[in-house]
């Protein structure tokens, strides 16, 4: 017994870009069931299963951990696994690939630029000297962990880059997530890489490109607060500069 006639529906206007067929993107409208427990990702899966198998998009965990299903929903960067259809109803939902990135196909962006930048800030613990094994672990107090824990929660979903107009205008900007990740290591008591990262971060393409729009922190699904990380680093960098001018004998060069 079907009650499909009574089932409420919602329209998704989905961005389509098939480079072998079209030079400019277009939009396809799909009507999908509007179910209370469905998120945009469920609707996309329904489209792919039932309506158009050629639709391409990234997803994996469907529970806000993997960070691969970030897209624009009505112009806002969201994790589509956490964006409920009913919160957009009535009315349609325009689903587009994340802004500020080149589009490879349909809802899939190329994230090569971010991958290169993430590598550039050296996101690993840099030590001056390795301790011999017999000295045991590198211990930290809970307070020392709290210093960087927030910045370690990033899932690389790139919503912050899509919310950042600076990155849109100046693609050479290292950007929110990469700088927050740099801070995650800078603030780690086991790390001695601050000086090395300073050369990369305290440049025009680093923190000084940021004019504190602050939207990166607003859209972050993990409350990493990259805007806060960048502003903190501006203070560190300024102090460092003054110290090198007023107390030159304290700097390493």
């Amino acid at each position, binding site marked *: 017994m079907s009650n499909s006639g009574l089932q409420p529906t919602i329209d998704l206007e989905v961005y389509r870009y098939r*480079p*072998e067929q079209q030079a*400019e993107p277009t939009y396809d409208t799909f009507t999908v069931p509007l179910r209370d427990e469905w998120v945009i990702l469920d609707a996309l899966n329904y489209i792919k299963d039932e309506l158009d198998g050629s639709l391409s998009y990234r997803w994996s965990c469907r529970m806000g951990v993997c960070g691969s299903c970030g897209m624009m929903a009505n112009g806002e960067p969201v994790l589509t696994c956490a964006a409920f259809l009913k919160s957009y109803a009535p009315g349609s939902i325009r689903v587009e690939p994340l802004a500020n990135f*080149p*589009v490879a196909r349909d809802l899939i962006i190329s994230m090569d630029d971010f991958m290169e930048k993430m590598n550039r800030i050296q996101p690993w613990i840099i030590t001056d000297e390795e301790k011999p094994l017999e000295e045991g672990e590198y211990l930290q107090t809970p307070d020392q962990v709290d210093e960087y824990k927030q910045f370690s929660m990033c899932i690389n979903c790139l919503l912050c880059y899509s919310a950042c*107009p600076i990155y849109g205008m100046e693609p050479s900007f290292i950007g929110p997530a990469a700088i927050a990740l740099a801070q995650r290591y800078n603030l780690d008591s086991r790390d001695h890489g601050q000086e090395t990262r300073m050369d990369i971060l305290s440049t025009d393409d680093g923190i000084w490109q940021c004019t504190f*729009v*602050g939207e990166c922190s607003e859209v972050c699904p993990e409350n990493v607060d990259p805007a806060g990380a960048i502003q903190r680093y501006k203070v560190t960098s300024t102090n460092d500069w003054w110290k090198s001018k007023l107390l030159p004998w304290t700097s390493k060069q």
Partner: protein
Amino acid sequence: MTYGRYQKYHPWLYEPRFPILWWIKKWAYIRFILREMTSLAVVFYAVVLLLYVNAVSDGPEAFAAFTAWLKSPLSISLHAVAFFFLVFHSITWFNLAPKAMVIHIGAKKVSGSVILAMNYLTWVVVTVGLFWLLTF
């Protein structure tokens, strides 16, 4: 402006243009642009002050003429607009302070609201101090 940085080697990638009017789509972006524009109000005040100092050096007549202009409706309305932007500038600036300032007392982090309160308190003290200097 297209970036072109990918298309050279990956011609199939579509690179959307970044729209000039990107900031009108969202209130948060408009607020940001307004905050950036407040710098013009700061420039306005600085220029008025420089002109006033110049009028003082030009003698009593120039000073009286400039003071009269300051009392004109045009000047008062310009000052009202500039004042609004400066207050907006100051409040948004102070509200951002806890993001940049992380102060430790011992192992404890000072909470953001305390840093915010200290900033506002300093603002009030300096304002009252200046007012006292100018009026007594």
